[in-house]
């Protein structure tokens, strides 16, 4: 007998009413749903930044194109995409109750995240060495470096937070306090960071490549 039949005949028991009230949205566990809501909100944050960047780039004559090489950004992209794959392997390992394997792949993902951050900071230091700051750069309008450091900085902040989360969740998973669901939720965040980079690279780097 379905839940509807219960209510039609006036036989709604406390148990079935509770089941109706606690049925998770889209049959997704609450913590996973919370992560999806965070991802949607964060998408709006990044989209706001990228749209604002597009607006000022479109409205500014002689927008600077200071990037000479794609090697660093290509390497960073490769590392971040690979870290998404290692995260997937970690989650699949956890779902097969391979605790050691899941922890190992989780830490590999964190190391790749750290490598990405190091390359990113090295690139920043190179640009700062050329005279670029948040409010000034030697190539033209200061809006360029404002947009560049703000958007890539926001992304770098997300990567850094993600690395901390990967290590913390990995350790707690190994200690038995977290399970495969927690790894999957962390993985969602990590894939989102990767997804954002897919838009940051073409719009911030490749569109500003000097030919």
């Amino acid at each position, binding site marked *: 007998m379905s839940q509807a039949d219960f209510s039609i005949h006036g036989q709604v028991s406390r148990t079935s009413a509770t089941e109706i009230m606690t049925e998770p949205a889209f049959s997704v566990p609450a913590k996973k749903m919370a992560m*999806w809501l965070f991802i949607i909100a964060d998408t*709006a944050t990044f989209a706001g930044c990228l*749209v604002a960047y597009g*607006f000022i780039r479109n409205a500014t004559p002689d927008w600077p194109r200071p990037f000479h090489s794609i090697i660093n950004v290509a390497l960073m992209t490769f590392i971040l995409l690979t870290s998404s794959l290692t995260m997937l392997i970690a989650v699949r390992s956890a779902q097969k109750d391979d605790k050691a394997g899941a922890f190992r792949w989780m830490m590999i993902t964190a190391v790749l995240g750290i490598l990405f951050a190091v390359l990113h900071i090295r690139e920043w230091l190179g640009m700062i060495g050329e005279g670029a700051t948040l409010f000034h750069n030697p190539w033209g309008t200061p809006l360029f470096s404002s947009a560049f450091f703000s958007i890539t900085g926001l992304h770098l902040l997300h990567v850094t937070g993600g690395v901390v989360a990967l290590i913390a969740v990995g350790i707690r998973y190994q200690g038995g306090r977290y399970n495969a669901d927690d790894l999957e939720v962390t993985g969602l965040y990590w894939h989102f960071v990767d997804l954002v980079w897919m838009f940051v690279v073409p719009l911030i780097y490749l569109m500003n490549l000097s030919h």
Partner: protein
Amino acid sequence: MAAAETHSHQSGGIGKDVAVYVCLLVLAGIQFVIAYQDISASQMFVRMLSVAIIEGGLALLFFMHLSENRGLMWFVVIFTVAVLLGMQYGWTDSYRLIDGVPWSH
């Protein structure tokens, strides 16, 4: 409730994950090739954004497993697209700034 909280084994295997990963690498490579094409900025923008949207779609559907939950997929897509579309109202003003005022020339 119990069914939802018990973790679900994701469909497909590691082979599917690797295939999607390779597709993403290829698409990222295409973006780098587009960067060196001798085309206008607007053409480059459209091409790069198109590739990025395909990349994002693949990541959402397969890495983030939205393809396995149709209801959640539509919720995420409709909500996000509505927000993104809401942000597009200012573009004409950016053209006014660059084309329509004396100091922009």
